[in-house]
């Protein structure tokens, strides 16, 4: 059962998968906190279209991946701040890119197996050079992320205050998205567009329900990401089903109970400080009563109005 670890290609898969999982967990945390979950889904798909274009032109897919994802990242970063409009714009950019992708695929008369492998991934077919490249690249990305860590965290949680304090919020947002785009371009060739989204969102979404502190949440997300990847590769090497399925199922299987049970511990901490918006809805008769209560109490001290 453990003797599969002797094989070179399994070792390669473990090393490359671990590197991707670490970088993806950190980026996923920031993506979720910044409300960019959808962009995390769209960028790998846009990269798929870029790879199709590169294959049609007969150049290395990485070039197509980088060109498409970076231009999409800049476009998403420049577009509106309101989540509502941004989602629509992200979706339509993605549709446009994928439309081009199917055009490239239909123009390409050869065997497009390599392009589809970008969509579904083939983590068990990585070469030694790929592993080296991915490891080096992950260290680079990690060091850039660590340099930007504090301003990025600040601008993610409170963009207005960060802007007032002189943090270049918009520029940071674009730089971060470009970083995500470059990571997508590298990682997608190894784990595939579909699996990369799982590694991006799954660990961070789970840890955000467990711990509040950013640093701990990120560390826990990294640990979870590595566990999912190792378990997934292990199961896939022993079974006959694809890695993406195992990792997605483990990730969802961990997330679901935590999401359902989290009101038990999240509610206790946050409700003391501020009431949730939904809790303020009352039948019409009671609203007036409650308003009188608030106004009579509020004459003494209104929090936040000390300006």
């Amino acid at each position, binding site marked *: 059962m453990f003797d599969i670890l002797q094989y070179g290609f399994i070792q390669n898969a473990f090393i490359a998968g671990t590197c991707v999982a670490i970088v993806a967990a950190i980026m996923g945390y920031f993506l*979720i906190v910044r*409300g960019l*979950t*959808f962009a*995390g*889904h769209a960028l790998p*798909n846009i990269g798929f279209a870029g790879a199709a274009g590169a294959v049609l032109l007969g150049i290395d897919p990485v070039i197509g991946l980088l060109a498409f994802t970076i231009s999409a990242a800049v476009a998403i970063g420049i577009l*509106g*701040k*309101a*989540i*509502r*409009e941004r*989602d*629509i714009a992200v*979706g*339509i*950019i*993605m*549709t*446009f890119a*994928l*439309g*081009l*992708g*199917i*055009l490239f*695929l*239909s*123009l390409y008369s050869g065997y497009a197996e390599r392009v*589809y492998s970008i*969509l*579904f991934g083939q983590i068990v077919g990585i070469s030694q050079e790929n592993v080296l490249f991915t490891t080096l690249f992950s260290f680079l990305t990690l060091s850039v992320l660590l340099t930007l860590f504090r301003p990025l965290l600040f601008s993610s949680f409170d963009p207005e205050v960060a802007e007032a304090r002189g943090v270049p919020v918009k520029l940071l947002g674009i730089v971060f998205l470009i970083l995500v785009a470059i990571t997508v371009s590298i990682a997608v060739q190894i784990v595939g567009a*579909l*699996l990369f*989204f*799982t590694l991006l*969102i*799954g660990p961070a*979404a789970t840890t*955000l329900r467990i711990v509040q502190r950013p640093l701990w949440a990120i560390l826990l997300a990294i640990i979870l990401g590595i566990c999912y990847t190792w378990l997934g590769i292990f199961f896939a090497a022993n079974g*006959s*089903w*694809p890695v*993406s*399925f*195992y*990792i*997605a*199922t483990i*990730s*969802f299987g961990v*997330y*679901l109970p935590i*999401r359902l049970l989290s009101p038990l511990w999240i509610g206790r901490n946050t409700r003391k400080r501020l009431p949730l*918006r*939904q809790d303020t*809805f009352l039948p*019409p008769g009671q*609203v007036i009563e409650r308003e009188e209560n608030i106004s009579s109490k509020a004459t003494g001290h209104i929090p936040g109005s000390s300006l």
Partner: protein
Amino acid sequence: MFHLLQYDFVQNAFLEGALVAIMAAVIGYFVVLRAQAFAGEALADIGFAGAAGAAILGISSLLGMLGLTLLAALGMGALGERVRGRDIEIGMVLSFALGLGVLFLSIYIQSGTNANAGVSVLFGSILTVTRRDVIITLITGSATLLIIAFLFRPLLFASVDPEVAQARGVPVRLLSMVFLLLLAVATAEAVLVIGVLLVFALLIAPAAAAEQLTHRPLTAIILAVILGLAFTWGGLILAFVGTGRHLPASFYISAMAALTYFASVLIARFRTPRRYRPLPHPSRECVPVHAR
């Protein structure tokens, strides 16, 4: 080119395209208003899993998609209301659905020989639509439109301002559940025409473009339907007439949809005087800027 209309599969494609374009545009208008674009995308990917599962079982892919998307819509509706948190939940359901889809696809490929089965689901296969699919679409589509017409005013109210609507006694939560179910039906049928990856071209793009051009709900819906029909039929005609190489209809439809949306954003930007441009506001209100 008119002699092509004699063929059954061409008739089916035009009929199915028209039905789906109308339904998707109407539903899409509310999706844009309610900021549920990501939910639409997730439902499409769940449809991918449904279609792949249906391929294994040997049943019609439309039925498989309808079954799984309706189930997922129930789940998403039960999971909550808040916009910020819901994004993550949709993402998690989406990633799980993609994993399932990959599993079903790999089982299907292992059992059969057709390695391109997934591709037709991902990029649409309007030319393989059967007459039975058209009839199912006609029935579900008219039922969906009837329900929308019946719920039009409360749904519009709840979409534009959920808090005030709830205060006025509109069952906001129930409406949002019903709407998600309708969205599931519309998405599953749009996937049949244009594919999982390009569903936005019919679901979001016409409505988003129309919403940029007019703020009146009924005008916007009618404009969205016209745009959706133009994209679908235009794409089909271009695909049939296209010289030399036969490029897929999905490409034409999505390219026209995206370019129309970008154009409408530019038009809206040039038409609105700068000082009246709505500012994004946390509670989604539009605050006119007078002093700038």
